[in-house]
């Protein structure tokens, strides 16, 4: 935040975002708010966890984003027998050169779709920790950079928990936001039914931004101005989760930073070089909810989500936003 964003940079960034938005709308119908939040996550350089029932467009969303960018995309189907090396890659002895050669795993890409991430064992899930945090994998003591930009697009089913391994809190904390797709509206669903698309390979989208554009966007986010009262507002929100009796533990410092960065990204996505309190309030649920656990034990995951969101809404109502 040392330098301020120039007007021209804002215009360029806004144009890139609008191109992405328009391109994704070609395949994702009636989900403008979700598209916007995905773009916010991309601009903020964060990772996304999408929870919803199968078949509501999670993968399509990931494909749309990946193909709208001139980026490498890979998809990993997480299963209980998936090994960490299946994700990160492995060093294989090459007879011809008489040495171990690193064979890249699918995680070495720009956009990685981790499909049904909770079906993998904790060991495999944790293989993603380093790569999500540091954007690199270390195999046999040798670090290998993943793509830049790098974004993990994980999905999981919130209802069917049979044979799954819930993500540990440390891994949840590394996702910038968690979204729910939800069913489309009837008119949008009718439009989807009319379309002739079949399979993900039929998603024919031309890249509208380059990797360089995305990197520029991500750099610019950190220059978006956040006024002192907005920072204090973020702090109050985060602090309120720590004193709230219904939560087992409050949001972490990383959560506060994530909320600030996401708010900056939203401001940029909407063409502003400063953050409004509404940027914070609009993102609070998506950024904080998956990092908070209820103090009382509840087996129903959907009930937990509803309760956490309700408490967050109460906190938002109780803490006046700067005006």
């Amino acid at each position, binding site marked *: 935040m040392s330098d*301020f964003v120039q007007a021209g940079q804002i215009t360029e960034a806004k144009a890139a975002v609008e191109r992405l938005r328009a391109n994704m709308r070609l395949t994702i119908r009636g989900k403008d708010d979700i598209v916007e939040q995905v773009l916010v996550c991309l601009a903020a350089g964060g990772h996304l966890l999408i929870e919803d029932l199968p078949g509501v467009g999670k993968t399509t969303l990931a494909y749309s984003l990946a193909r709208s960018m001139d980026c490498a995309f890979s998809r990993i189907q997480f299963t209980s027998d998936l090994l960490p090396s299946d994700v990160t890659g492995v060093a294989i002895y090459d007879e011809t050169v008489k040495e171990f050669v690193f064979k890249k795993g699918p995680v070495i890409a720009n956009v990685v779709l981790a499909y049904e991430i909770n079906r993998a064992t904790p060991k495999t899930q944790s293989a993603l920790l380093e790569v999500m945090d540091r954007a690199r994998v270390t195999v046999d003591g040798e670090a290998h950079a993943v793509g830049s930009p790098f974004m993990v697009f994980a999905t999981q089913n919130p209802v069917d928990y049979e044979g799954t391994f819930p993500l540990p809190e440390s891994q949840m904390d590394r996702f910038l936001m968690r979204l729910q797709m939800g069913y489309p509206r009837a008119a949008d669903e009718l439009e989807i039914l009319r379309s002739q698309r079949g399979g993900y390979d039929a998603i024919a989208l031309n890249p509208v931004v380059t990797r360089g554009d995305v990197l520029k966007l991500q750099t610019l986010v950190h220059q978006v*101005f956040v*006024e002192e*009262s907005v920072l204090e507002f973020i702090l109050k929100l985060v602090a309120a989760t720590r004193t709230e009796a219904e939560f087992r533990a409050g949001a972490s410092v990383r959560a506060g930073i994530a909320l600030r960065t996401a708010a900056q990204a939203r401001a940029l996505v909407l063409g502003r070089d*400063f*953050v409004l309190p509404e940027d914070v309030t609009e993102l609070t649920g998506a950024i904080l909810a998956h990092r908070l656990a209820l103090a009382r034990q509840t087996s129903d995951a959907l009930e937990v989500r509803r309760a956490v969101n309700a408490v967050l809404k109460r906190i*938002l109502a*109780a803490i006046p936003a*700067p*005006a």
Partner: protein
Amino acid sequence: MSTETKPPPLSLDELAQLKWLLGGVLTLLGVWTVSYMDVEAWELVILTTLVAGACVWWPTLPARVPALMHTLAFPLIVAFFVGDLWLTGSILPAMVRLDILLLLYRTASYRQRRDDLQIIVLGLFLIVVAGVLTVSLAFAAQILVYTGCALLFLLTITLVDAAHGNVKAGIFAPVPRTVPGWATHADWPRLFRRLHDVADARVVVLAVALFAGVVAISAVLFMAIPRFQLENSLFLERFVTKKAKSGFNDSIRIGDVTEIQQDTGIALSVDVSDRSQAPGAPYWRMLVLDDYTEGVFRLSPRLRMTAFGARERTGASALREPMPKLGAGVVWTFFLESGVSRYLPFPGRWERVQFRESQNFRLAPDLGLLALREEPVTMTAYRVEGVEISPVIPDPSFARRWKAANDSDRRHGGLQSTLNVNVSDTERLRALADEITGGAAVAAGDFIERAGAWLRERHSYALSPVIPRGTGDPLVRWMTSREAGHCELFAGSLVLLARAAGFPARVVTGFRGGTWNAYSNNFTVRHSDAHAWTEIFDPEIGAWRRTDALAAPEVQRAAEQTGEAALARRADSSWKARLDSLRVFWYRRIVSFDQQSQTETLRNLKAGAQRGGQQLREALARAAAAVRAWFGGPWDARRVAVVVGWIALNAGVVWLVQRGRIRFRHWRSAKSDDPVRADASRWLRRLGECPVPTAECAAVRGELQRLRFGARVTWPEPEGVFRRARRALREARRERRPA
């Protein structure tokens, strides 16, 4: 949520919490007034304070009271009242205790609307009773605070009722042993923060200003309406307020005054209409004690009958006898605090006393004293006219009796010359008198000086005297010792010595001196100024001579000096005097404000306003004439330059003032409270309330958001943005208006 989002209004629970809090405060304010009254209820006051404080702080407490207590509460309270009345026989103290008990019960149980209103009425009863009885400045402050709180309380009750609608059995209908929802999560610091956030500063300031205005108007009206004595219209006459330690009774025992002198509370405030006639240190006569028996001076029954008469009088004034006045219209106005004495203090002889209202009193014209039937329970104000201040008090009646009496009558005939001590003490006293006079017959004036000097030479002054052990009269024992003593010992000794020398003599009690309040220009006499001195009859002039055995003649003469210089020597300009002046202001303007002074004040106010208006009009007329004359004169380059310079100067001043205002606001504002950001926030809020959001509103909104939340280097020119916002808002309002 947008930037214009206001804090959410107080919820029903928060209003209920506020109502509970204010109810507790009103209870405490009401109950604490009992401390002004002399009512045996301090245990109840402490209990109510503790219970009310605990219930306010922990609002779940009342739910822990057993249901049986709620059932039995009222029968028990009524039984207590009946028993109290039966045992004490005093209606008002019993009612006060009943009131406290009812408040205690109300504050320790969840209340409905009628219970809240009861709290106001019960608290008001206590405050009014205490206020009417004490008529103190504290009462004015207390009733103001109470009224403010009660208004807020009523507003809160109304808001709760309005929000609650017509639901009868909702969350606020108290159910025994059940904690209402609002009480479970009561958090007072948070409630205060919410009140702070929700309260609109402008509304609060307006409300306070309105309240102050109403109080000011009420004060003016109060000063304009005729006075009446409330306590005489109600049933409070027998009810006693807190007493000061006075000790001024019909009899005093040597040594009792010591306690009085520790009390620095005000006993008397006196206004003097003509300062040049006021002595620097007056002697305020209250009571004459002529009979002495075994260390006790008392007003003898004989003198009581002959001087005060058998008949009690009733009236608003007491006329003594015409005498030359000290200048035309010299009036001394006395404000005697409650609990001092039923004998009124006077600075000398007087012609007429005027009370505020009718009094029952006995007048002793020869002694120059006046005694009310009972010790006043409130401050008593009276005016004294025809005052003559002199150390010599003529008493023709006594002079005639003294002249006609033979030796035996003089010794045993009640002519204030009886020693009343045993034979040996009588002999010792005569021997002492001979030692003082040298065995020769001396005049009364000469004897007074010699006896005073003899006493001062043998004894020093001390608040805690030591009377030597032994047989015989205690005063004679002290006199013949070298022990220190206080005023009563000196005065009593002089009386005995004078009587031994053949002069009638008596002890007079009252106050001596006091201070001159430099702020309110009045005498302030404290309980610690209580004093006793001697009056010795001089047969040659047929009058009593006042003498103070403690003070040397030159000191007494200095005390008799009158005028500004004498008062200046006793002037008190300390902070305590400043506070005392408030009390005197209160007495002058509110308490003892009769029709005449009322009219005078209003007339002065009117005259002052008219005079000020007239002066202002004349000044304006003169200025206008001067300006007209100047502009009507021939114009030249110099005149034009003056006009241009004048306009430029004014423009410069306006510019500087504006710059200064902005800089001042910058200086006052903290980093987080940048004035531009604050203004932008205000305009954003106004635009948020814009009835018709026009395109211009939307455009200017973005700029305002930048001013409010954007980086300072990216700001547009603030004043321009604010002007646009003003225009946009005006246009939006115009568009809303129907054609």
